[in-house]
């Protein structure tokens, strides 16, 4: 497999000559991979996708597709399938004609084209819809047609620009699985853009978290969640408890961080020496109530809010001067004594408390 199937090499992009929307982007995508570009709006992820598709040109740097530099190749010669935000189905053509469009411009004979269209439609379970107009389809069905159309001409690379943004929650979730399964069954390389982290975590092999025109972290979903490399990623992905403080000691792969009047133990990720400001990030499910003595951070706090969520209960606790500390407690009979205003003991392992940059 080609490790550098898509390669962004030192790519800069500016629209107005004043602000860089994409800064010195370095990104390699493996063949057959499902990579998601995730980030808040304005982070440059869609711009990257548009540069890859050929609708925007890099201000500096080069993009390679399968070893070829593509900056000077116009979009229609790149052979990249694309699913647009609002599907961009041709409203005056039937589903069949929409799918036939990329095949016709490639002068593929009709019987062969028909086979490909049938195959693509069955892939998205829309057999029998060939003669409908896009306007007669529901949002989910239009979405499937758009996916089928982007795949019908067997491109090596498919780009998806927030394709599920317009669907309601249930449909969005089922489409996520469907797109993931299609990707797994045909092995096409997919670059997917979204601002929805759960979508990214569900579907991707790897996720590139964008912020401020830069890739903050590029790694698999579990690593991204468990081991964020900076505060932005930690806060952007999933829920997060934070403590801001100052490093007072580093030794033996652990560090002590001074918070308010106490010192807590943490895992030094981006801090190097004493006196540095830091922000400690801790996932809510990594902190336990009534912890065993083996945990190296144990403190007591006061329950300020209890929200029942069915399978678990969210508990907001005031601990170490942080009254936004969230705990997720499974609803088992052992945890029945969680009551508002009670003082409880909570603890976590110092490995899970990641001392990151103070931003």
């Amino acid at each position: 497999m080609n490790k550098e199937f898509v390669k962004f090499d030192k790519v800069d992009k500016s629209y107005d000559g004043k602000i860089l929307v994409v800064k010195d982007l370095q990104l390699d995508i493996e063949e057959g991979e499902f990579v998601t570009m995730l980030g808040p709006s304005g982070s440059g992820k869609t711009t990257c996708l548009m540069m890859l598709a050929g609708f925007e040109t890099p201000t500096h740097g080069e993009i390679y597709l399968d070893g070829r530099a593509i900056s000077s190749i116009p979009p229609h010669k790149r052979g990249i399938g694309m699913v647009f935000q609002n599907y961009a189905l041709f409203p005056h053509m039937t589903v069949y004609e929409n799918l036939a469009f990329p095949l016709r411009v490639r002068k593929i004979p009709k019987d062969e084209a028909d086979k490909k269209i049938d195959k693509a439609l069955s892939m998205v379970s829309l057999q029998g819809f060939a003669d409908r107009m896009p306007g007669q389809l529901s949002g989910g069905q239009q979405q499937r047609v758009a996916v089928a159309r982007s795949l019908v001409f067997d491109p090596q690379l498919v780009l998806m620009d927030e394709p599920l943004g317009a669907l309601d929650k249930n449909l969005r979730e089922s489409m996520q699985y469907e797109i993931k399964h299609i990707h797994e069954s045909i092995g096409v390389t997919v670059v997917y853009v979204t601002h929805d982290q759960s979508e990214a975590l569900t579907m991707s092999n790897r996720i590139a978290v964008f912020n401020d025109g830069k890739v903050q972290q590029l790694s698999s979903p579990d690593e991204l969640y468990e081991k964020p490399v900076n505060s932005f990623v930690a806060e952007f992905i999933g829920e997060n408890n934070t403590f801001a403080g100052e490093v007072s000691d580093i030794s033996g792969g652990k560090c002590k961080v001074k918070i308010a009047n106490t010192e807590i133990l943490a895992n030094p990720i981006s801090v190097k020496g004493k006196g540095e400001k830091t922000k400690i990030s801790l996932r809510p499910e990594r902190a336990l109530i009534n912890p065993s003595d083996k945990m190296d951070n144990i403190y007591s706090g006061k329950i300020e809010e209890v929200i029942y969520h069915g399978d678990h209960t969210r508990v907001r606790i005031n601990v170490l001067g942080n009254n936004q500390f969230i705990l997720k407690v499974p609803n088992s009979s052992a945890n029945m004594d969680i009551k508002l205003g009670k003082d409880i003991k909570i603890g976590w392992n110092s490995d899970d408390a990641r001392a990151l940059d103070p931003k």
Partner: protein
Amino acid sequence: MSSETKQILTTDGIPLEVSLKKAERRNKIKAFLLVAPLLLFLIITYVFPIGEMLMRSVDDKMVTEMLPKTYKAMEKWDGKELPEEEVFAAFHEDFIKLVEEKREGKLSTQLNYTKNGFKSIIKKLRRKSKNFEEGNYKEQIMAVHKRWANVEYWNAIKRRAPAITGQKYLKGMDMYKNETGKIVSVSEDRRIHRILWLRTLEIAFFVTLFCFLMAYPIAHLLATLPMKYSNLLMICVLLPFWTSLLVRTASWMILLQQQGVVNDFFVGIGLVADDARPEMMYNKTGTYVAMTQILLPFMVLPLYSVMKTISPSLMRAGKSLGGTPIVAFWKVYFPLTIPGIGAGCLLCFILAIGYYITPALVGGASGTLISNQIAFHMKSTLDWSFASAMGLMLLTGVLAIYWVYNKLVGIDNIKLG
């Protein structure tokens, strides 16, 4: 007992339907009162004049009223031989009355429209009729002039008998009803209206075409440029719209006349010789140029409003799927602009077909349209019924075009904004 058949009552015991109608009535009256002024205005300024125009174009009561007894007497006459004494006597009686009321001049004008030569013999009849003796009017009238003894002239009078006539419409098509009642074309050297109709259609067609060719790229630019520039461009499109039609037409006259700015420029750069300046004004060219410029906004605006709704991602989709920019444009963008094209073309064509002021000013002899002919009959010949007839023919033509368009493209497929 089913609940559907049971009459539902309000809490006061009034049937619900009655109560609903009562509640709605006030709103209906209010709504009607709000539109009433406009309705009245439309009836007075639009429906009534058109009805009046229709009446006038077929109205031929004048002669019928002037010669009531003659026509009564003529009913039995077959028109082959000269009529009997009875008809002559009735005609004499009608004529004397007209002379007393000093209306015989009008009669002679009207009859002269039908057949040339009536004017002089009516004048002569008026002079001689003072000395007529009672009885045997046939002999006496025939003695006035030999045309009075010609059966064709009596037939011409008879042809004017019906109070309603279509002859103005025939005249508008360069045709007339001859002595035997057959509809024939006028001699070739006198056919002016057909040429004018064809020229009107031709100029309207080409003006629409030119407008379309120029407006399409402008509208596309307007729809795709960033707001900052598109607003400026929109003002450039609309600015002429806000300028007086006369001013614009006059400025074209200044630009295009033989000693005008454009010709001076051509001579200046050596494109044409000073003594061979092309005529661009007071002919078809002038009409084309000025009308295209004036009607351009009517094409730009519907196109723009349609193009504005076309998502730019559609063109991108077309390209990303492998279509060259031309294919993507032709297969994706263009078909989606058809509602705007239809609206713009229909609007331009219909406006162009009835255009008056510009062709009148810059058209010269070869660039005038049917509307100028209508105006000519309104103002110069005072043949209002003929002007009305041509106006209605124009209106019918426009409605026919609208109908054909509806059949071909469908009127729902039109978008004006």
